[in-house]
């Protein structure tokens, strides 16, 4: 769906890490106050809030917002597993584009996989016997069969993302040396052909974004380029005869193509217009699938795109400039808003050593367990 007249007003995130000794409320409060400070406003200027997490207990969203003030604003909790952050931004954008709010907040937080009291345990049912990484490993198994993908392709892309994170002080992984594909291949196996260094760490953290009517953003941030939210598309699984009921944590990769098509059409742009992409690499073989599903290359050419270095820093279409899920980290709820934070920095020319030269148009993509896929497009004016 096209988003009319909405732009980013501010973003903030904590480092994604194991935040021992800090509560989910501490983390959410830090980014809530951080994003308001970034925009130069306080909660009295915010019309609606969309807050989210996958693992926090009930009521946390509304209670966390009290830390920022008591203005009576409507607060809606969003949960879409790994896609939560981008879905929260989608709803905040609609709150503004519909005219309900001049400014809306998207905020997400997570305290890692450590279960909070009262949230119950994992039922040892049939589906839980198949560990979640197996879902993605099965995609990789099939791709190796059909396309001749080699473990080296996966390792090369994982190393790209680990090394991108070395330029991002808020990333979970901070390698003290240039990571090589050989190192990735040699890390402990998880589910063939995937190794530990090919998968995203959970950790915890929080991230937030404010969106507002374009004229409000221009008034509050006159010296910064206007970064518009162009469009967003959220889909869930569609049936085809290869659909699998039990086991996969995520439906087929083609969900992403469906979301991308809708988002591109609504924005009136195509993949050739993109300057950078943030995508869902919870396991690195997803990155290859999504190159094709997002239209960064033709179907069957993702390995070639990777081999050419086209998606590495300085390449034709840099992917996961902040380290991606594999290395920036994937605390689940906040991940999408970390992507939006990176896009805001890149499209404002504030990304420092990882800046993509003259970045103007960016795509954020996530998939969420259940399952769903979301693609959102952003563009700097001028």
């Amino acid at each position: 769906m096209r988003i009319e007249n909405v732009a980013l007003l501010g973003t903030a995130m904590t480092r994604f890490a194991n935040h021992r000794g800090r509560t989910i409320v501490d983390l959410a409060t830090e980014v809530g106050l951080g994003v308001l400070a970034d925009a130069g406003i306080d909660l009295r200027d915010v019309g609606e809030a969309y807050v989210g997490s996958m693992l926090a207990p009930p009521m946390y969203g509304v209670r966390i917002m009290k830390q920022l003030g008591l203005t009576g604003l409507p607060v809606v909790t969003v949960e879409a597993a790994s896609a939560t952050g981008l879905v929260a931004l989608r709803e905040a954008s609609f709150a503004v584009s519909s005219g309900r709010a001049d400014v809306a907040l998207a905020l997400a937080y997570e305290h890692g996989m450590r279960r909070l009291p009262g949230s119950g345990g994992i039922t040892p049912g049939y589906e839980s016997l198949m560990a979640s990484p197996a879902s993605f490993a099965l995609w990789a198994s099939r791709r190796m069969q059909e396309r001749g993908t080699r473990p080296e392709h996966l390792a090369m892309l994982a190393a790209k993302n680990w090394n991108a994170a070395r330029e991002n002080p808020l990333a979970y992984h901070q390698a003290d040396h240039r990571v090589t594909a050989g190192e990735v291949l040699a890390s402990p196996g998880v589910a063939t052909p995937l190794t530990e260094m090919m998968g995203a760490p959970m950790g915890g953290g929080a991230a937030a974004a404010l969106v507002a009517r374009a004229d409000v953003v221009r008034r509050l941030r006159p010296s910064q380029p206007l970064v518009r939210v162009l469009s967003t598309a959220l889909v869930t699984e569609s049936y085809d005869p290869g659909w699998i009921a039990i086991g996969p944590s995520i439906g087929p990769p083609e969900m992403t193509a469906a979301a991308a098509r809708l988002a591109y059409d609504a924005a009136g742009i195509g993949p050739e217009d993109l300057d950078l992409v943030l995508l869902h690499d919870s396991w690195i073989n997803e990155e290859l699938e999504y190159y094709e599903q997002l239209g960064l290359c033709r179907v069957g050419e993702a390995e070639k795109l990777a081999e050419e270095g086209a998606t590495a820093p300085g390449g034709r279409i840099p992917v996961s400039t902040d380290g991606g899920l594999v290395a920036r980290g994937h605390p689940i709820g906040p991940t999408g808003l970390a992507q939006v934070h990176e896009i805001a920095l890149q499209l404002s020319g504030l990304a420092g050593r990882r800046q993509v030269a003259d970045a103007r148009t960016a795509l954020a993509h996530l998939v969420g367990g259940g399952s769903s896929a979301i693609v959102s497009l952003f563009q700097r004016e001028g």
Partner: protein
Amino acid sequence: MARVAIEPGIVALPDREGDPPRLLGCRCDSCGAVFHPARPVCLACYGRALSGAALDGNGTLYACTHVQMPLRPGRREGRDYWVAQVDLDDGPRVQGLLSPDIGEPRIGMRLGLALETLRVEENGDEVVVPHFRAEAGVA
């Protein structure tokens, strides 16, 4: 002591030990589409009339992975395991476990269904799960 399935609606246990188990599913009365497990509405034609079906579980291997990560609750300790996607002769593609004795599975190989004991409860009940193994008589 009795054998019990890991959860209802997944697998029908045979009355006699040694007979093959069946995967529980349904067939659409309108368009014939087959699903595992049973479901309330047909995904192909949205028909509401679906009849129970017991699927023999024979099929071909579509994709597989050898899982080496720490085991999930309920899984026997100290065991890595295989997960596979299988195109059933009856129609649907399903995901499930491969027999620990699968050796070196090959995509496209023929598979059949068997039961594996997951654990023995304190009351002596054996909790079983379905798994796929190389079809009898097929290398």
